[in-house]
C-alpha cells in the first residue's frame, strides 16, 4: 500500500515535470498576485516573516529555543517553567521546519523572479512600475551619496592662494582642456562659472558637436541655453563632409584594396574625432587597424587608438595598444616613444599600480612638449613622474631614478617646484617637503588622472617620508616629529598609530611620555604564530571546500521549487516516505 502511494507520488512528480510549461505560464499569474502584495524587497522580507508566523504559529517559540544568545538565557529559563506548554509544540517542530523551508523557498523563488523582472519577457504593468520605483529610489540614494562626497572634496583648490587659473588652463588645448575645465566646474566654487563658460567656448571653437550635447546632458544644464543656430550650422557642414567620406569608403570597398579601405576608415575616424564623437571614432580606428599593413601607418593607427581610448577613459584598451605600439616603434623616434610611454603610464595610474606608473613616466625619453597636448604635456609628465616616484621609490631610488635621470630631468626643468620637492625628500628637510607637498595636493585634486586617487597617493608619499624619518632612530620624541611634519601632536599620534596598524611602520608609541620606539621583534615567535594561524586557516578552508566539492559531486543543491501558493505542502510523513525505504 505504502509503496504504491510512493510510486504514485513519483508519478505525480513526473507529471509535474511534464507540465512544467503550464506551470511556467501560471507562474506569471502568481507573480502578478505576489507583485501586488510585495511592493519592494523590504516588504518581501516582511512577507516571508508574516507568512511564517501565520503558517507556523509556534515558530517564534521555536526560535526562542534555538537562540544562541546568552542574553536570552534568562528568557529561556523562564520558558523552562513553561516547558509543558512548549512540549506541546515539539511534535510540530520538525514539521514546521520543513514547511517553513518549503514556504520560504517558494517565496524566495518568487522574489528571485522579482529581481529579474526586467528580463522576463511577459512583463505586466505592475512589474514595470515597481521596477521603476526601485530604480528611482536607488538613483536618488546614489546621487545623495555622491553629493555628499563631492561637497567634502570640493574647494580644496580654492584654499590654494597662488593658484593661477589662466596660466594653468592655457597650457592645454582641445579635449584635455575641456576635461580639466569640467573638473574645475565640479570641484571649485571660485572658478565654477568661468570654467563652464570656457569649456563650452572651447567645445564650440573645436566644433565638438556631439560632446557639446553630452555636456548639457551630463551636468543637467538648462536646454534653453543651448546654441541651436550654431548646432544647425555645424551639423550641415558636417553632413556634407560625412557623405563625401562615406562615398570614398564605398569606392575603396569596390576596388577592394585593403590599404585604401584602411585609409578611408581612418579619415572617417578623424572626422568623428573632430565632431567630438569619440566612441564612433574608436570603432573606425579599430576596423582600420586590421586592414593596414604598412609599418609606419600601423604605428600612427595605434597612436590614434591610444589617444581615443584615453579620451574615452577605457584604460585597459590603452594599455593593450600601448604595449603593442611599444613593439612597433623605432627607438630613434623619441616623440612617438614618449607618447606611448606616457599613455601606458596613465593607464597604470587608473589601474592603481603605482610602481609601474612611476617606471613608465620616469623612462619617458626627453623632448615631448606640446605634441601630445590633447592628452598630456611635458609639465604633467614631470608632475606624475615625481609624485609616483616619491610614492614608490626609496631614497636611493629617488636619487638615481629622478634627480640623476637626465632624460627625465628635461621634464623637471618645466616644473622646478617638483624638483625641489624630490630633493627635499632626498636631503631629509621634512618641513619644507611637507609644505611643498600640500601645494601639489591641492593641484592634484583637479587633475584629470589624479583626481580619483590623489588622497591615497599623498597619504602614501607622506607615510614614505615618515618611514624614512624614523629609519635611523630607535626612539624619538613624537612632538619633535610632529613639528617637522607640520602637524599637531594629537592628530600626528593618530596618523602614526594608523601607519603602525597597517604594517608600514614597525614601531610602538609610548603615549605616556610621547615617545615613538622601534619595535622589538622576536622573529621566531612571530613565525611560529603565523604558521599556526596559516595552517589553521588552510585546514578549515580546505575542509569547507571539500564538503562543497562533495555536494557538487552528488548534485545536492538548493533547488527552485515551482509550486502554487495555495498548494498543500508535504507533511512530515510524506517527507519521510519520499526519502526511500
Amino acid at each position, binding site marked *: *500500500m505504502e*509503496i504504491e502511494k510512493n510510486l504514485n507520488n513519483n508519478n505525480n512528480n513526473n507529471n509535474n515535470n511534464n507540465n512544467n510549461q503550464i506551470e511556467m505560464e501560471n507562474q506569471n499569474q502568481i507573480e502578478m498576485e505576489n507583485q501586488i502584495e510585495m511592493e519592494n524587497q*523590504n516588504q518581501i522580507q516582511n512577507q*516571508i*516573516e508574516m507568512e511564517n508566523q501565520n503558517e507556523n504559529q509556534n515558530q517564534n517559540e521555536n526560535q526562542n*529555543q*534555538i*537562540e*544562541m*544568545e*546568552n*542574553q*536570552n538565557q534568562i528568557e*529561556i529559563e523562564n520558558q523552562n517553567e513553561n516547558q509543558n506548554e512548549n512540549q506541546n509544540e*515539539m*511534535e510540530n*517542530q*520538525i514539521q514546521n*521546519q*520543513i514547511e517553513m*523551508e518549503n*514556504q*520560504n*523557498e517558494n517565496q*524566495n523563488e518568487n522574489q*528571485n523572479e522579482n*529581481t529579474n523582472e526586467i528580463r522576463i519577457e511577459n512583463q505586466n504593468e505592475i512589474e514595470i512600475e515597481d521596477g521603476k520605483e526601485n530604480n528611482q529610489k536607488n538613483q536618488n540614494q546614489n546621487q545623495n551619496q555622491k553629493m555628499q562626497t563631492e561637497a567634502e572634496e570640493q574647494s580644496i583648490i580654492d584654499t590654494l592662494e597662488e593658484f593661477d587659473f589662466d596660466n594653468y588652463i592655457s597650457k592645454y588645448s582641445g579635449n584635455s582642456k575641456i576635461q580639466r575645465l569640467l573638473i574645475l566646474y565640479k570641484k571649485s566654487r571660485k572658478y565654477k562659472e568661468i570654467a563652464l563658460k570656457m569649456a563650452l567656448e572651447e567645445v564650440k571653437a573645436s566644433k565638438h558637436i556631439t560632446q557639446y550635447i553630452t555636456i548639457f546632458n551630463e551636468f543637467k544644464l538648462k536646454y534653453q541655453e543651448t546654441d541651436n543656430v550654431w548646432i544647425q550650422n555645424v551639423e550641415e557642414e558636417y553632413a556634407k563632409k560625412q557623405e563625401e567620406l562615406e562615398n570614398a569608403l564605398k569606392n575603396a570597398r569596390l576596388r577592394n584594396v585593403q590599404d585604401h579601405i584602411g585609409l578611408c576608415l581612418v579619415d572617417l575616424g578623424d572626422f568623428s574625432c573632430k565632431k567630438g564623437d569619440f566612441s564612433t571614432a574608436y570603432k573606425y580606428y579599430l576596423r582600420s587597424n586590421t586592414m593596414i599593413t604598412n609599418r609606419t601607418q600601423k604605428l600612427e593607427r595605434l597612436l590614434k587608438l591610444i589617444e581615443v581610448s584615453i579620451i574615452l577613459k577605457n584604460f585597459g584598451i590603452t594599455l593593450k595598444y600601448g604595449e603593442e605600439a611599444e613593439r612597433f616603434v623605432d627607438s630613434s623616434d623619441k616623440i612617438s616613444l614618449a607618447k606611448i610611454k606616457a599613455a601606458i603610464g596613465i593607464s597604470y595610474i587608473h589601474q592603481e599600480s603605482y610602481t609601474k606608473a612611476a617606471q613608465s613616466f620616469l623612462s619617458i625619453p626627453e623632448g615631448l612638449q606640446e605634441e601630445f597636448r590633447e592628452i598630456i604635456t611635458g609639465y604633467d609628465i614631470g608632475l606624475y613622474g615625481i609624485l609616483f616616484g616619491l610614492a614608490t621609490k626609496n631614497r636611493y631610488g629617488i636619487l638615481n631614478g629622478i634627480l640623476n635621470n637626465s632624460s627625465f630631468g628635461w621634464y623637471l626643468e618645466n616644473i622646478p617646484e617638483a624638483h625641489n620637492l624630490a630633493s627635499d625628500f632626498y636631503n631629509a628637510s621634512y618641513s619644507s617637503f611637507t609644505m611643498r607637498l600640500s601645494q601639489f595636493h591641492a593641484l592634484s585634486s583637479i587633475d584629470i588622472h589624479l583626481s580619483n586617487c590623489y588622497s591615497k597617493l599623498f597619504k602614501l608619499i607622506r607615510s614614505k617620508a615618515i618611514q624614512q624619518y624614523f629609519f635611523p632612530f630607535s626612539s624619538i620624541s613624537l612632538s619633535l616629529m610632529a613639528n617637522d611634519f607640520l602637524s599637531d601632536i594629537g592628530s600626528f599620534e593618530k596618523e*602614526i598609530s594608523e601607519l*603602525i*596598524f597597517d604594517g608600514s611602520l614597525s614601531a610602538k*608609541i*609610548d*603615549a*605616556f*611620555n610621547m615617545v615613538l*620606539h622601534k619595535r622589538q621583534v622576536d622573529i621566531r*615567535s612571530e613565525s611560529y*604564530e603565523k604558521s*599556526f594561524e596559516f595552517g589553521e586557516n588552510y585546514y*578549515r578552508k*580546505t*575542509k*569547507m571546500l*571539500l*564538503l*562543497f*566539492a*562533495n*555536494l*557538487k*559531486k*552528488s548534485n*545536492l*543543491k*538548493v*533547488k*527552485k521549487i515551482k509550486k502554487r501558493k495555495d498548494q498543500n505542502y508535504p507533511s512530515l510523513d510524506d517527507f*519521510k516516505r519520499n*526519502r526511500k*525505504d
Partner: protein
Amino acid sequence: MEKLLQQIVQLSGNQKDLDKLRKALNESKDKVLKNFQIIDGMIGQLEDSKHTLGKMFLLSMKGQSRSTNPEQYLVQLERFIPRATQNQVQIMPEWYSNCLTRMTQLAFDLKVPQRAVYPLQKGIPLLQTVPELITPSHSHFMLVCLYTRNYRAALPILENDVYDIDTKKLSITVKDVLLYYYYGGIIYGVLKRWRDATDFFEQAITVPGEALSAIVLESYKKYIFAHILAFGKAPSLPRYTSPVVVRLLKNLCKPYEEFAKAYDTHDMGQLDMCLATHNEIFEKDKNIGLAKQCAQSLIRRGIQRLTKTYIKLPLEQIAKEFNLKSAQQAEFYILDMIEKGEVFAKIDQQEGQVSFFDDPEPYNTSEMSEKLISKIKDVTNLTEKLQTLDEFIVTDLDYIRKTMDDDEEFEVQDSIVKDGVSDK
C-alpha cells in the same frame, strides 16, 4: 514469516551469508507489510548485536505501520540502536538510518526528546561508513541537543569533521546538510566558540544553490555576528558562494550589512546608532542578544588593537577613546581582559597608565611541539583526501572529454597513441 525469522538467525554470520540475507530481506518486504501484527514477536526473538541486519530491517519496516504503540516502539528502538554491530549496519545503512529517524521522531512525538540524545550519539558513528561521512541524523542530533539544552553532548559529533557524502549508500537531502550546519553553528555559538560557529554558518551559506533557502538566510544573519565576534571585523563571503545567493542575501539582510559596516568603522557612536535604528528587526529575528554582544566586543577589540601600536598608554586616554565614563572603567575592562588572556598588559595604578606587551608565549615548550605535530598530522590527512579527490577528477571520463575538447594538443597526443597502437 517463520522462514524469514529462521533465515535471519542462520544467516547472521559471515559476510557472504549476510549478503544473502540482505537479498532475502529485500524480497520479503511485501510479505512483512502484510503481516505487521507478528513483527513484534519476531523482534523480541532477535538479539540486538548478533542479528543487527535483520532486526534493523524489521524495525524500519515497522515504522510504516500506523497502528503501532509509540511508547513500545520507542523502547525497542532505544534499546537496539546503541547495541547494533557496525559491520552489519554498513550492509544496509539506509535501514539503520530509518531507525534513527523514526526514533527521533517518536521522542519528539512523545515529548521526551532527551531520550533521543544517547542513542543518536552512539548511533551516528555506527552509521558512518567513513568517519568523515555526513548523515541525515547529524541534523536531528543537533536539534535534539538544542531542545534539551544538552550542548556539550553534541560536541563529540560536532568536533568530528565531516565532509564526505555518499548518496549511493545513504541518501541525504540538501536540507539535512543545511540544518546540520545551522544548528551546529548555533550550538558552537552558545558555547562561545565563535570561530567554529563562523565556519559552520559559512558552510551552510556556501552550499550550492539555485535559490535562497530560509536556512541560508538565517545562517547569514547569524554568520555576520559570529564573524564579528570571532575576528573583530565584518565578513566577506568566499568567492565560490552561489551568485544568486549572494545577491539575495545582500538585498534581504540590509540592516545586518549596515551593522557590520558600522562595526568596521570602530566607532562606538555609529554602532550604537545603527543598533538603535535596527533594534526592532534584530529583536524580531531574535538576534538582538548577538548584536549586543558584538557591541560590547567593540571596546575589547579596540583595546586589543591598542596593544599593537602602543607600549604605554594613560588610562584616561583609553577612557576617552572608547567613550567610557572614567579611567576606573577602562581599568576594569583591561583587568578583565588580562584575566581572560585577551591582552598582555600591566597596570601602573600610581601613575594611571598601562604597559602593553607582546604575547609572551615562547613557542619552545614540549606542549607546543606536540600541538604542532598533531596539526601537521591533520593537514596531511586532509591532503591525502584532496589527492584522492584529485585522482577521481583526473580519471573522470567527462572531465577528460571536456579537457580534450579544449585542448587540441591532447587530441594530437591521443591520435599519436592510437597510431602507435595500430602500428604494432
